[in-house]
């Protein structure tokens, strides 16, 4: 590199560039926040949905499934499970019917022994998730 290119110059680029882009990122974050009410389906964020999200987290569902494409890739995407499984009843029926000891040779979801009220909450959470505006992702019903 040229002799004129000093360490002080490189340092200034680091500090200046970082500060510049942190500020830009914060500005975009601010704008994102003002845009979210139109997209994140908050009008349907009921207490039941919040309960469903807590159950989703406390049973580590993300350890096998993905939700809006994030999580593990061992089991199907659930951002559109509400549509794919045919609504709340389909979701609840699937979760309830998982055999305790699994399926020989195949992947199986564990039996979580949820109460009916918990099942309703999970279904409500997946319904709420499916109504978030995700720019048309996933590409099709298979997730």
């Amino acid at each position, binding site marked *: 590199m040229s002799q004129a290119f000093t*360490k002080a110059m*490189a*340092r200034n*680029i*680091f500090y200046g*560039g*970082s500060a*510049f*882009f*942190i500020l830009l*990122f914060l500005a*975009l974050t601010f*704008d994102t926040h003002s*845009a*979210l009410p139109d*997209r*994140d389906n*908050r009008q349907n*964020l009921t207490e039941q949905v*919040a309960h469903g*999200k807590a159950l*989703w*987290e*406390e*049973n*580590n*569902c*993300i*350890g*096998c499934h*993905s939700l*809006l*494409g*994030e*999580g*593990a*890739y*061992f*089991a*199907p*995407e659930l951002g559109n499970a509400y549509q794919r499984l045919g609504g709340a009843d389909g979701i609840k029926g699937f979760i309830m019917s998982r055999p305790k*000891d*699994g*399926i*020989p*040779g*195949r*992947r*199986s979801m*564990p039996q979580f022994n949820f109460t009916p009220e918990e099942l309703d909450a999970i279904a409500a959470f997946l319904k709420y998730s499916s109504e*978030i505006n*995700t*720019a048309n*992702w*996933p*590409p*099709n*019903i*298979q*997730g």
Partner: protein
Amino acid sequence: MQYKSQAVAKPYFIAAIGLFVGQILFGLIIGLQYVIGDFLFPEIPFNVARMVHTNLLIVWLLFGFMGAAYYLVPEEAERELVSPGLAILMFWIFLVAGALTILGYLLVPYSGLAEMTGNSLLPTMGREFLEQPTITKIGIVIVALAFLFNVGMTVLKGRKTVVSLVLLIGLTGLALLFLFAFYNPDNLVKDKFYWWWVVHLWVEGVWELILGSILAFVLIKTTGVDREVIEKWLYVIIAMTLITGIIGTGHHFYWIGTPEYWQWWGSIFSALEPIPFFMMTVFAFNMVNRRRRNHPNKAAVLWALGTAVMAFLGAGVWGFLHTLSPVNYYTHGSQITAAHGHMAFYGAYVMIVLTMISYAMPMLRGREAANSNRSQVLEMWSFWLMTVSIVFITLFLTGAGILQVYLQRYSADPLPFMVVQDKIALFYWMREVAGVMFLIGLLTYIASFFVGGKEPEAVVAATEGA
């Protein structure tokens, strides 16, 4: 070893390698569960084993970073650590907390663990990579603060170099950004948005600062190139890292309910994210070519060069592969993501920690500068075994991912998830074989520590042009 207190790095490095073995064993378990679905079911279901696999990775890398900092900072600051006792105390707290957390994952159902640790008081569990009980997270913060205090004070009281300063900025950023792990709103979109402030801004932001400074340190020591030159490069590389990486966070905001302009911002800036990694490769090779001496620890130099190349391939090339939003629309949340994750983590962070261990461990074990030639040869074998294995794991997962994307998302008649999984099982089998090879490489690596013999002599490189 120039300073007595550098010795605290040794237990950190040993713990890191031990947990690394655990991580790989659980990786093999989940790899097998991909093809033999009921393997260890219901005793160790996939989600538990995966959580152990990823959490062990994060914890051992943190052990490695901390060990690296404890070794590097006294030498850079030219003084002893402020408190070696605190460093050892924090080592045991972190190790015990980590071990208890992993045992909790394995012995108690996850929901039971959530209940036991009072997750409902401050719910932070059950999000990918942040599965730790809230109490463990608080423990991580305390350990991080004590560590930063120890390292920070040492730097402040001693010689301040660019290497230690950049390391300190990276470690501080790591601790600060982790605080977003405690923010878990009911609103899923906000939850995901700030979750990335931890995950992305760690691995594509502040961790790269840590990576850069450790690499710079090892290159200064092994090549004898003028510190000024290396530090200048370091500044330019980390500047490019943050310039591209911060707005590059946008490549995670395409499909999670955030506004669609992120598809432009994210695509444009993350397309530039390979640049700092490319510069890092040029930098490492350039410095080694301009070396003023031939360091007797050839293995450490090999690891350093390997880091630069593999980080560029894994984080740079495999990241670019699916970062543009029209491509990502199809590849998001597929095995392509898994392929990128494996090579990027190995190439950037696993390898930099192993580079540091390779460089520092001989001195920590009382040698002058390097292990015996026999030991180094074995270590270099392990380098190639692990690196080639990860390349194959990545290639097989990429193959699986391409097929998955085509069959499940792109073809005219998309197939259900599980049907597709069955069709691509052959790739998962091959991945598992590559995984076993990786384990053999890792065991070889550990074996290299137990090979004795006489230390090779340092050689001064022939002066260029002489």
